[in-house]
């Protein structure tokens, strides 16, 4: 009987020792795991935030660079084209003109007038390159139709455009941003995709306003777009991203399930519409 009791005691002793030791080990292990795992998660989150912040900086830098390029182009146009033209006008209209005979005076004035007209045209062109007049006067739909018509006119691609519901317009500055994005996307398609057709459609629902480009060339997928966008050398896609950020819009690059065409969807929140 005593032997049995002793055996029972030993069993309980072992169970208690091993059980307690096991539980203690598990508990300590869990606490250590929580500490290290939590730190890992937080470091990961911090790294993600830093990456996002770097990305924002890169976009801002691209926007600034793009603005700077635009300024330099305008400065160069004014300096190289308008400057010499106005200097020539000044030469025609110098003080000695009053001492010239009537025919020479008339000829000089005529020449000066021609150069002034040329300068006006030049300045108008510069101004139009900043904001297309069709966009300013008639809106995005007309500006895009105009652009598509011009592309069609080249005969190298069949381009079309259809706005299904654009009764409520975007604000002018938003239209300009959307126009620039579409212009850049279409320009990329023309340059790189070897597409034979390009079709732009506009739609909207309660929450979003969509613009979608379909084409049958070699396009980009979302992953490729993100990779190229983060590439320090590519400015165009960064500009697109910068403008999207300002608009609060998103862009999606997809390959159609039938593998016959690519589509790019620009999605804006519907509350951006006037």
């Amino acid at each position: 009987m005593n032997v049995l009791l002793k055996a029972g005691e030993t069993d309980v002793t072992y169970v208690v020792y091993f059980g307690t030791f096991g539980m203690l080990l598990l508990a300590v292990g869990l606490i250590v795991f929580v500490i290290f795992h939590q730190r890992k998660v937080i470091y990961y989150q911090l790294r993600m935030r830093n990456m996002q912040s770097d990305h924002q900086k890169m976009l801002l830098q691209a926007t600034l660079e793009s603005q700077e390029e635009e300024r330099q182009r305008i400065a160069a146009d004014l300096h190289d084209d308008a400057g010499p033209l106005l200097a020539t006008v000044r030469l025609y209209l110098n003080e000695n003109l009053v001492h010239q005979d009537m025919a020479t005076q008339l000829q000089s004035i005529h020449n000066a007038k021609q150069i002034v007209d040329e300068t006006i045209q030049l300045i108008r062109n510069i101004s139009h390159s900043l904001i297309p007049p069709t966009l300013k006067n008639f809106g995005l739909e007309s500006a895009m139709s105009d652009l598509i018509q011009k592309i069609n006119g080249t005969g190298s691609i069949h381009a079309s455009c259809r706005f299904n519901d654009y009764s409520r317009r975007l604000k002018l500055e938003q239209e300009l941003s959307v126009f620039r994005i579409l212009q850049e996307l279409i320009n990329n398609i023309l340059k790189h995709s070897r597409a034979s057709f390009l079709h732009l459609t506009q739609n909207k629902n309660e929450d979003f306003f969509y613009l979608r480009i379909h084409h049958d060339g070699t396009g980009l997928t979302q992953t490729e777009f993100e990779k190229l966008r983060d590439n320090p050398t590519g400015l165009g896609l960064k500009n697109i991203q910068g403008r999207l950020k300002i608009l609060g819009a998103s862009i999606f690059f997809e390959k159609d399930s039938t593998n016959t065409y690519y589509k790019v969807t620009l999605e804006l929140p519907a509350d951006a519409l006037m």
Partner: protein
Amino acid sequence: MNLVIEDILRLSTLLPILLFLVLKQKEKVKWVFFYFSGFVFLHAIISALLAIYFGKNIAFYFNIIFIPAEFLLISYFFSQVIEYEFHKKILIISSSIFILIYIIITVSSPLIRFNSLINGIESILIITYSLFFFYEKLRYPKNLFIYSQPYFWGVSAFFLFFTTSFFVFLFRQMAWNQSVFIYQYVYIHAFAGIIRNILLGVGMIAKPDKAGIAELT
């Protein structure tokens, strides 16, 4: 039987109390540690005095109030540190059920000095609350150094105490007549208690790291 380790356990209960009084940091969770340690210390002293002057039976009956009071204090602490509403609801419901079961068992069999079932359920509940806390901290970490938070040390203290004591609590009712087990019980329980008190002391020293992740970027 009065072992040195039991005296160390009683004295270690003073550690968080003294640190609380010396450091004068009055965060809510530190108040809970203070009340808890104060309660455990007073209970130990009163139990010892009752055992000396009135016998061990009276001291055991005094224990009747110890378990629910200890459990309610720890549950209150967890209700302060657990954030998910669902977990809080489980905590409140299970704690209420536990107290109800405790009352029923105590009233129906008042002569049982130590009820392993009650202590086992208490341990499981506290371990579960600790797991809720750790799960929340893993899922949505808020502080870079979780160990700079006093509540983390509190949770770890209770978690380690109840996981370490779980088996001795389970076997105590059955094996209290075995001399080897009594030694085991005393040593393991005292060891777990000392660890708990030290961790609560660390919790008293810990200064909460108020800088969240957002501020670190």
